[in-house]
């Protein structure tokens, strides 16, 4: 049995290998003909004239992500502190759950919401600044919202896992809870909070549908470079937009694959960084022994020279000065988008001075009042976060529920999608989910069993774990590209349901593996021993005793990830999904299918006058995805209550 499991677990390595091989080989022409440097630093991207310089796209990706994270940091970290330190402990789980719902909303629904609500709203507010309705700002806000659940949940875990003894020690010295939070808890959790931010960046950078729907996908440099009202492009958006247009084998096609590789490298760097930081955090909290030499090295001992002394003497002032300088520059940049440079300078100086004054006053006030103010602020942040969520879901459901009737649910789209129903899309999504489950469940669960029960600390195990981590971090659109190169072309499945199955299955496999492994390792050892002591074989023990005991966790993970698969657009848009209703229902698994998320994307971006259909489609998609989320939550709670180790 062990050999079989090892073989299944190794599939993860095979998939990573295939992804690398096929993206690399597909991008080979571009590497040769365009050249890496010209590709990375070329400023002109114009497939029609054969110019493939991706600098604007790469920079655009970074800028949109930067904006997103600037938006997500205050909200995300504030909410995390609120949940861990301010909220009633009983409310903690509920609040965390609410934040998880954010993560459950499909990217395309965010994009749809952005198109319908955010863009008009921004255009009202910034009439004079916005030339087009789409903008960098809109992309960053949407991505920021999408990064929130990641930031909140990782940061909250980090803050919450700071030992209670630190809190007690600080409070016992007469510090208020707020002082304790800001001076002890947050510094102690700072690595974890940083990791949260980095993972949030990783999430934002790999997102496709939401950004491509609101940024305009213009391969230009914002002018000036901080012009958040400019059109902009991102790697994912360009891929989603141009891959269907490019013909196989030409330079455009291969340049797009090279673009995907750049994206993968970016994500890889981000994930490595977060891993290193999390390790540092563990060391700091004494989970792992401190590396004393490092403390000496990084200058916690004051340096000898007089300049070094001066720096360490005035560390606080220097940091503060730097922060204020950054603020000054930032406010100037933003203000200069609205008025002349000189007025902007005045505005920025005034704003900075006011902030400085407010901070000075805040320092002086009584620490109990300080705590009230701070906790009040955190409460406001939490409320804002929840309101955003309620608004997005509420707005779509309010408008969509009225569009839904029997004909809508079962009918075939007519008049280019403006009339009729979405029956084929619903059926297609269900078919995709079923096939995905069929492939990902055995792969995921067997691999999870292998890792939890059989894996020793060998090279192979390490490699498998690395591969799973890599898959987990791979942006969904890259799976789509890989599927296009491998299943659609090499295996010649064509654009087909079965290609979609495999791509989605590979994409959600890591989550199933991880939750299975976690659930299995949580089963207490006595249970194993009891069964083995009765002479049951290891495999029998696993199947009869351990897997059933871990069923709650396994099912939760599976349902959650299938819900995610149901909402994904980017991976299936090249390999499985079609918009036309020429042959709406697939006859065989080698036919293309309609799918809810892709249908929504298509209607929202290509079919003018299909508003009611869009709302209806978005509502059905939300109901399916959030319904699965709810089922998973109920199962989890049920098992948590029933099984108490």
């Amino acid at each position, binding site marked *: 049995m062990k050999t079989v499991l090892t073989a299944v677990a190794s599939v993860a390595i095979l998939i990573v290998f295939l992804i690398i091989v096929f993206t690399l080989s597909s991008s080979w022409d571009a590497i040769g003909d365009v050249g890496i440097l010209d590709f990375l630093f070329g400023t002109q991207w114009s497939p029609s004239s054969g110019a493939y310089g991706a600098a604007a796209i790469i920079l655009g990706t970074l800028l949109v992500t930067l904006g997103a994270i600037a938006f997500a940091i205050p909200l995300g970290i504030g909410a995390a502190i609120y949940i861990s330190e301010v909220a009633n402990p009983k409310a903690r789980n509920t609040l965390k759950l609410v934040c998880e719902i954010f993560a459950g909303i499909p990217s395309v629904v965010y994009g749809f919401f952005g198109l319908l609500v955010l863009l008009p709203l921004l255009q009202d507010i910034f009439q004079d600044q916005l030339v087009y309705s789409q903008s960098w700002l809109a992309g960053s806000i949407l991505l920021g919202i999408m990064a929130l659940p990641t930031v909140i949940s990782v940061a909250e875990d980090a803050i919450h896992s700071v030992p209670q*003894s*630190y809190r*007690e020690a600080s409070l016992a010295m007469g510090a208020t809870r707020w002082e304790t939070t800001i001076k002890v808890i947050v510094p102690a959790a700072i690595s974890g909070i940083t990791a949260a931010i980095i993972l949030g960046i990783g999430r934002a950078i790999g997102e496709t549908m939401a950004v491509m729907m609101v940024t305009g996908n213009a391969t230009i440099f914002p002018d000036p470079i901080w012009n958040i009202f400019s059109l902009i492009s991102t790697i994912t958006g360009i891929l989603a937009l141009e891959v269907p247009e490019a013909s196989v084998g030409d330079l455009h096609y291969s340049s797009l694959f090279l673009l995907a590789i750049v994206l993968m490298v970016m994500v890889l760097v981000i994930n490595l960084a977060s891993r290193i930081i999390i390790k540092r955090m563990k060391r700091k909290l004494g989970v792992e022994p401190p590396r004393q030499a490092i403390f000496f090295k990084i200058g916690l001992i004051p340096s000898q020279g007089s300049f070094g002394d001066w720096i360490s003497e005035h560390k606080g002032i220097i940091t503060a000065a730097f922060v204020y300088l950054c603020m000054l520059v930032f406010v100037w940049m933003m203000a200069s988008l609205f008025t002349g440079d000189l007025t902007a300078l005045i505005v920025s100086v005034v704003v900075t001075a006011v902030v400085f004054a407010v901070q000075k006053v805040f320092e002086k006030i009584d620490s109990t009042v300080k705590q009230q103010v701070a906790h009040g602020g955190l409460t406001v942040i939490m409320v804002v976060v929840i309101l955003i969520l309620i608004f997005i879901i509420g707005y779509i459901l309010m408008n969509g529920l009225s569009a839904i009737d029997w004909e809508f649910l079962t009918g075939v789209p007519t008049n280019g999608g403006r009339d009729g129903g979405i029956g084929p899309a619903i059926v297609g999504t269900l078919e995709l989910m079923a096939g995905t489950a069929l492939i990902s469940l055995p792969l995921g669960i067997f691999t999870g069993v292998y890792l939890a029960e059989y894996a020793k600390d060998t090279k192979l195990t390490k490699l498998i774990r690395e591969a799973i981590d890599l898959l987990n971090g791979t942006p969904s659109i890259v799976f789509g590209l890989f599927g296009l190169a491998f299943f659609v072309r090499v295996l010649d499945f064509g654009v087909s349901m079965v290609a979609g199955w495999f791509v989605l299955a590979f994409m959600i496999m890591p989550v199933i593996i991880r939750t299975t492994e976690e659930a299995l390792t949580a089963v207490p050892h006595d249970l194993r021993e009891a069964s083995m002591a009765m002479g049951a074989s290891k495999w029998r023990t696993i199947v009869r005793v351990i897997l059933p005991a871990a069923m709650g966790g396994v099912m939760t993970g599976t349902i959650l990830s299938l819900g995610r698969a149901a909402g994904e657009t980017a991976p299936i848009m090249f390999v499985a999904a079609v918009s036309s209703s020429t042959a709406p229902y697939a006859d065989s698994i080698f036919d293309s299918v309609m799918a809810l998320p892709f249908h929504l994307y298509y209607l929202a971006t290509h079919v003018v006058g299909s508003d009611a259909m869009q709302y209806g489609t978005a509502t059905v998609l939300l109901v399916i995805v959030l319904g699965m989320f709810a089922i998973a939550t109920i199962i989890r709670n049920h098992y948590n209550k029933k099984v108490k180790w």
Partner: protein
Amino acid sequence: MKFGLFNKTEKPSSDPQSEEKAVQSPSAPRDKNTEEWENNGQFIFAEIPSDDIAIDIKGINLWYGEKQALYDVDLPVRRNAITALIGPSGCGKSTLLRSINRMNDLVDGCRIEGEMLFHGENLYDPDVDINSLRTRIGMIFQKPNPFPMTIRENITYGPKIHGIKDKKELNEIVERCLQQAALYDEVADRLDTSALGLSGGQQQRLCIARALSVNPEVILMDEPTSALDPIATSKIEDLALQLKKEYTVAIVTHNMQQASRIADYTGFMYLGKMIEFSETGKMFNKPIKAMTERYLTGRFG
């Protein structure tokens, strides 16, 4: 035997024969009876002039949710002396100690009744400023818990919170507190390295130094040596003896020898009740309650 004698004079109504049995067979109902008997009546056997009482605890009842953890506990804590609390684990020593600087306020569902007088003021008055209260009554915990900062930052943390900014003044505080905690010589050359690099015993002394940094009047210690080796333990004990000259110390210990070595007064607790409180010498030589005697001689059911 003098123990026996004491028992008889203190318990005229009890039949010595049955008491003997209760000692030998620790059957539950018997123990319950004994306990009830033991708790009816007096359990404070030390005369402390009221001027010398730093904290006067009177009739404290405490509940964790539905569960009562302290029953009518009295405890006079004498100024510039060491008061020890002993008793089997789970008897409520930590609970009592933590209620003195209101650390139990942090526990959800914790409710307390009774009086704790500190400078004639009830610590549980609604208008008591809990932060300044905790500044005046510091606490040392069972497991050393220095902050993950440098040694210096650990000690300047409290003073900075309370508004001291002057570098020189802070440096003086660091030196004074480390000296008082008998740690200065060992760490003088690495004040700016992480406190987590210190040994367990050093960490605990750092925690004591940190507690001293805000000039408390009272220092509460909850089994401060239970995680330490014998040498580190004896250093902390010496330190406690030094500290009582300037501070009032209350210490919970699971180690009777420790109480007998350092404490001036000792309270013995059992199942949330104060069974006997008296001068340490008296308690260890002639315990008044039979239950105390059984505990001290290690014959405890």
